[in-house]
């Protein structure tokens, strides 16, 4: 049953604090806001995501929870206006916002927090059953910080009774099963991330819901009977984040690789679904995650958002925001996921990004082979060695990053490159978005050393079949190719290795509202 109105909207009580110290203290909070005591019953609120959030902040030393009362949440207010306010039994139109701190904060300090309160982030609690967790941004756990994982984090400014705070982490939200389902929350996570990066304007969850074309389904919109993938693509279009769509059974085969053979199911002797074995899933998805763009995957009747990845020995572990689980879930393997086999991948991107990551990577792979032969013909042993290593050496890797031209040109000065190269690259005529492809020495990168041997910058507004390469930095020489047939410029350099642009960007902190135009 929804909480009584007067419990949530007392106008005289702004906030209060709790100092949960024991398991019982945290369980009490979970029961109050997540309905944990009713777990298993039809009235249970599905407390798992909130349980996970409490576990995350607790592991990071949370000692104070500030409960901000009568919080007007933009998303909840939008949902309330179009859906919840039309029910016979009304929930309150307000939420509560929980703020987590490592320092002990007293009630009389809420209006004037200490200098370094140890802010871990916040979680909006909706006053409804079956999905209490609204907008949430929590600091990453320790094992995913300081370069241990690649995450699509945001900087989220928060004002708490005049105190300026910043939550830094991935965005998360839970479905309520009636109005918002997993499709809405997974899209919202990608949208909120793009909003906080300054790529799109803010849209509420109700806006998002209304963008679902009703004529594309035979199911009712209220209560939601689910959303089709076609409908999801329409929502991305409405958000100005048109998504690149991949069917996992038909993933691309970059230059120099062969399409894998599907293993047969021993019982049916038919090929197993690609979502149970095709390792190309990792390279397709990681290209975008490494660029800070969340990726949505759909499996058995469920969608979830991948927000990062990390290496675990030879394995890659995706990091997910699944609305049924909570933020920062580490997925052992997509092939054994509880919703396997995954069948679809959505990558919401800025509208001007027309070239897929694997198109750029495949094309540059072929270019490297060509430049290697050029090196043989022109006595350039460094380029010959580069091309050979790029194709054959396990210690050399081609990585690609999608970034705004403005960010690339800002960061290029921090890579330890020749000043004349920096000048040439900064003055190069580039489109708004570029793929930056780096040939990296794996060992040097793992040791935190400058690791890039060569770089290619690709025009994302060109074509998958023949991506335009705007700049090329080979061992000893850089070449920029202007658009519209402009004169090619070359210049020598003597920097054998420079820092990866991804490492320079990581060192500058989470993706802030950027200078990138759309």
């Amino acid at each position, binding site marked *: 049953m929804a909480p009584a109105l007067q419990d949530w909207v007392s106008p005289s009580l702004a906030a209060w604090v709790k100092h949960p110290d024991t398991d019982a203290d945290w369980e009490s909070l979970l029961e109050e806001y997540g309905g944990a005591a009713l777990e298993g019953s039809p009235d249970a609120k599905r407390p798992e995501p909130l349980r996970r959030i409490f576990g995350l902040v607790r592991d990071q030393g949370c000692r104070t929870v500030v409960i901000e009362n009568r919080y007007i949440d933009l998303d909840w207010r939008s949902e309330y206006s179009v859906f919840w306010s039309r029910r016979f039994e009304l929930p309150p139109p307000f939420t509560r916002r929980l703020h987590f701190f490592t320092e002990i904060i007293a009630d009389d300090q809420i209006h004037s927090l200490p200098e370094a309160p140890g802010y871990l982030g916040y979680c909006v609690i909706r006053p409804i059953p079956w999905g209490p967790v609204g907008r949430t941004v929590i600091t990453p756990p320790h094992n995913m910080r300081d370069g241990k994982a690649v995450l699509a984090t945001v900087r989220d400014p928060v004002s708490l009774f005049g105190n300026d705070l910043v939550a830094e982490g991935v965005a998360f939200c839970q479905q309520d099963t009636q109005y918002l389902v997993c499709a809405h929350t997974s899209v919202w996570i990608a949208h909120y991330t793009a909003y906080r990066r300054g790529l799109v304007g803010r849209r509420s969850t109700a806006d998002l819901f209304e963008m679902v074309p009703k004529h594309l389904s035979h199911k009712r919109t209220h209560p939601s009977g689910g959303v*089709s993938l076609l409908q999801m693509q329409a929502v991305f279009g409405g958000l100005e984040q048109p998504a690149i769509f991949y069917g996992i059974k038909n993933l691309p085969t970059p230059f120099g690789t062969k399409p894998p053979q599907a293993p047969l199911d021993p019982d049916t002797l038919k090929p197993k679904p690609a979502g149970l074995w095709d390792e190309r899933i990792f390279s397709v998805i990681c290209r975008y995650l490494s660029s800070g763009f969340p990726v949505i995957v759909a499996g058995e009747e469920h969608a979830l958002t991948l927000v990062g990845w990390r290496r675990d020995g030879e394995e890659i572990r995706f990091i997910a925001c699944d609305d049924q689980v909570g933020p920062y879930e580490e997925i052992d393997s997509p092939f054994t996921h509880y919703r396997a086999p995954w069948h679809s991948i959505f990558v919401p991107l800025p509208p001007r990004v027309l070239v897929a990551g694997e*198109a750029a990577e495949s094309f540059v792979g072929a270019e490297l082979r060509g430049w290697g032969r050029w090196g043989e013909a022109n006595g350039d042993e460094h380029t010959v060695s580069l091309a050979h290593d790029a194709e054959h050496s396990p210690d050399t890797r081609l990585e690609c990053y999608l970034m705004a031209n403005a960010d690339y040109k800002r960061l290029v000065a921090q890579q330890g490159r020749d000043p004349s190269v920096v000048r040439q690259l900064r003055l190069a005529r580039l489109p708004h978005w570029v793929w930056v492809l780096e040939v990296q020495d794996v060992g040097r990168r793992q040791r935190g050393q400058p690791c890039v041997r060569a770089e290619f910058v690709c025009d994302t507004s060109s074509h998958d079949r023949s991506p335009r390469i705007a700049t090329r930095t080979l061992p000893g020489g850089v070449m920029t190719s202007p658009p519209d047939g402009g004169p090619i410029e070359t210049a020598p350099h003597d920097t054998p290795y420079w820092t990866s642009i991804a490492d320079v960007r990581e060192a500058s902190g989470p993706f802030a509202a950027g200078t990138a135009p759309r």
Partner: protein
Amino acid sequence: MSTQQLQSMADVGRTQLGAMQYLDANERRELAEAQQSVVDARRGAEADEGHLRVH
């Protein structure tokens, strides 16, 4: 790189094929197929998976 090598690099860059001129016909066909597979990966998928629902 020497001045001569830089000049050669620019000469390659000015040609229509660029560095791809150093690939043989089979390799260029392999590249064309690889790039086409990227295009096909997106075209075919939507028709099959688009109707699937998530909730």
